[in-house]
């Protein structure tokens, strides 16, 4: 059992938890992930390590309550335990302190973009961070991201905060203004990563993306997280999760991510139904 030492609601949909997991905290690096299972009947889901503290032995996860499992996880409170918590899995981000990089985070993807930006920043890299959100009320980690970058930009789809527009607009604006990035790191929804990669390909800037497909074991056993990179089949859990974005087949990844959409919606409906029953009983 893995105890939740701290819980913080970052917005109405996104939650941060610090979980006691000393073995993982001792070893994990930016870009790696954990797999967790909430309870005996639960599924195994991957979440990227958002932060860690080697002294206190804690690992921070940030998740959006989007399906049944993340909703159940969100119902747990400080002092409660997560049944299974395993890692660190995947290959850590290759951090090069000599570079000038642009890190792009989209929505809850900022929870993954932030530790990568921080790792580069701590290593001495010149980090420009562009964070995109739908709207002002779902902005997360603003202060943290500011502290992990030398130049920080927020954009929102509806213009309620920062500049109105998409992360790609901001990135292109910076490039056209003469910023010379050695590398771009894009983490967020598949569609966002796809369009960042199309843009950076045009300007020939090497781009890494962090993939987050459906997984079961997370240790290379089931092959369910496979994707096509440069025409070859790769497993996100052991070959990634970071890949050269210019080689990733995003259309296929988007298609594969929808495999269980119906089943996930049904599970969510059942959860809502039983929660309503519980509320009724009270």
């Amino acid at each position: 059992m893995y105890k939740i030492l701290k819980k913080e609601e970052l917005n109405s949909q996104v939650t941060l938890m610090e979980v006691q997991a000393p073995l993982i905290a001792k070893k994990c690096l930016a870009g790696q992930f954990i797999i967790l299972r909430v309870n005996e009947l639960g599924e195994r889901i991957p979440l990227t390590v958002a932060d860690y503290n080697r002294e206190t032995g804690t690992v921070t996860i940030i998740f959006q309550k989007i399906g049944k499992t993340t909703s159940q996880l969100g119902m747990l409170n400080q002092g409660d335990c997560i049944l299974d918590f395993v890692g660190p899995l995947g290959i850590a981000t290759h951090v090069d302190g000599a570079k000038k990089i642009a890190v792009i985070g989209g929505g809850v993807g900022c929870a993954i973009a932030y530790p990568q930006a921080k790792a580069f920043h701590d290593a001495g890299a010149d980090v420009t961070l562009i964070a995109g959100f739908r709207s002002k009320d779902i902005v997360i980690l603003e202060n943290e991201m500011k502290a992990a970058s030398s130049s920080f930009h927020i954009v929102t789809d509806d213009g309620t905060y920062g500049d109105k527009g998409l992360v790609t607009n901001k990135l292109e604006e910076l490039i056209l203004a003469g910023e010379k990035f050695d590398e771009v790191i894009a983490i967020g929804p598949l569609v966002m990563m796809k369009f960042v990669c199309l843009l950076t390909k045009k300007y020939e800037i090497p781009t890494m993306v962090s993939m987050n497909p459906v997984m079961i074991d997370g240790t290379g056993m089931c092959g369910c997280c496979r994707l096509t990179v440069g025409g070859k089949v790769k497993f996100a859990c052991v070959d990634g999760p970071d890949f050269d974005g210019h080689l990733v087949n995003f259309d296929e990844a988007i298609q594969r991510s929808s495999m269980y959409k119906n089943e996930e919606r049904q599970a969510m409906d059942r959860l809502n139904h039983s929660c309503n029953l519980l509320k009724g009983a009270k």
Partner: protein
Amino acid sequence: MANMSLKKVSIPEQEPCIRNKNFGEVSLGYTAQMAMEEATRCLNCRHKPCILGCPVNVKIPEFIQLVAAGDFVAAYNKITETNSLPAVCGRVCPQESQCEGKCVRAIKGESVGIGRLERFCADYVIEHGGASVVKPELNNHKVAVLGAGPSGLSCAGDMAKKGYDVTIYEAFHTTGGVLIYGIPEFRLPKSIVNIEVNKLVELGVKIKLNAVAGAAVSIDELFEEGYESIFIGTGAGLPSFMNIEGENLNGVYSANEFLTRINLMKAFLDDHDTPYKKHNVVAVVGGGNVAMDSARCAKRLGADTHIIYRRALEEMPARQEEVHHAMEEEIIFDTLVNPVRILGDDSGNVVGIECVKMVQGEPDASGRCRPVVVEGSNFVIDTDAVIMSIGTSPNPIITSNTPNLDTNKWGCIVADETGATSIPGVYAGGDAVTGAATVILAMGAGKIAADNMDKYIKEKNSK
């Protein structure tokens, strides 16, 4: 006087048309009377070829004589002198190519039902108790076992019996490895696996779950923590694909994924959260035990199920019993057929698998006829799921994180006949060394490694 019947005493089974709709065990096992009757078919011959056919050298004629005499507990204790998991082996060993394949009774008629008798003894003791658990005296030496599958459990059991303080590190949230995630309930009930694992715990074996060898714990750290020898039994994880068009469509699974969803995560049950997609027609590609397991699971979940195999039926590597059971359960066998591509609809879902017909050519290196494509014989099987069951390669996590651990070109850990690897004190066995093989071969490797780890530690400490 031996029972000279040419046939094994038949074993009660669930009817095929009933069992192909449930996950209950197919074979119901012998009654005491059936077991005693079958046991009298053993001639107790002098040269005991059956023992040589067993990777863990179970004293087969001796235990069978005890069964014949009705002393089932003593028979069980005789088996467990060399085999830590009899209830498992009695169910899943390929006996026809091992002990039973060597049985002199098989020269004329059927061999003695050694597997069935082993299972009977194990089940008898599970039900009635009485097994001798001799808790060994601890020798105050610590060893670590990486992976709680067949090779690791076998190694851990033997080391514990020798008095070692054993800790198993397992990546999954439960023990058993392929016995849990791979082999389905109807062939090996999970309660049986748990009972066998609990026996190790009673022997003093400690188990750490959710601990990925190579990620959370490294070989160097384990030595630093005072483990004097380490066994790597991390299995063959990585599933292989055919590299044909359409393999990443929705509805194409590796056998590992399909079986893990069903066996480990129980995705087909409504109260379990792992999603399962209902399929009407499932095509399983491959001819091994894993292919049979996948097909029979798919059938039980309501799909019309095909097995597609590029060679002939008699060349299938699966246990005869599995092929036989699968056929009884109305699984369609498309043999001498090979897939060339998987067809999808506009949303990326599988709608069919295009295959070619094959004919048997000249024998190849394996001694089997090389399958040759019949040009222009392409045809399509309409299906909404494809399960690739064409093998696996070893899990890369431990090897990629342990630079001085030698591997071969397939990524298998290099170990000699004693199980020793390129790192002193580190032993390995099972699929991590051999690539995908059987439960019992993995158990045999774990056992051999245990003997040699014991020798290694004794020699080191006597210096």
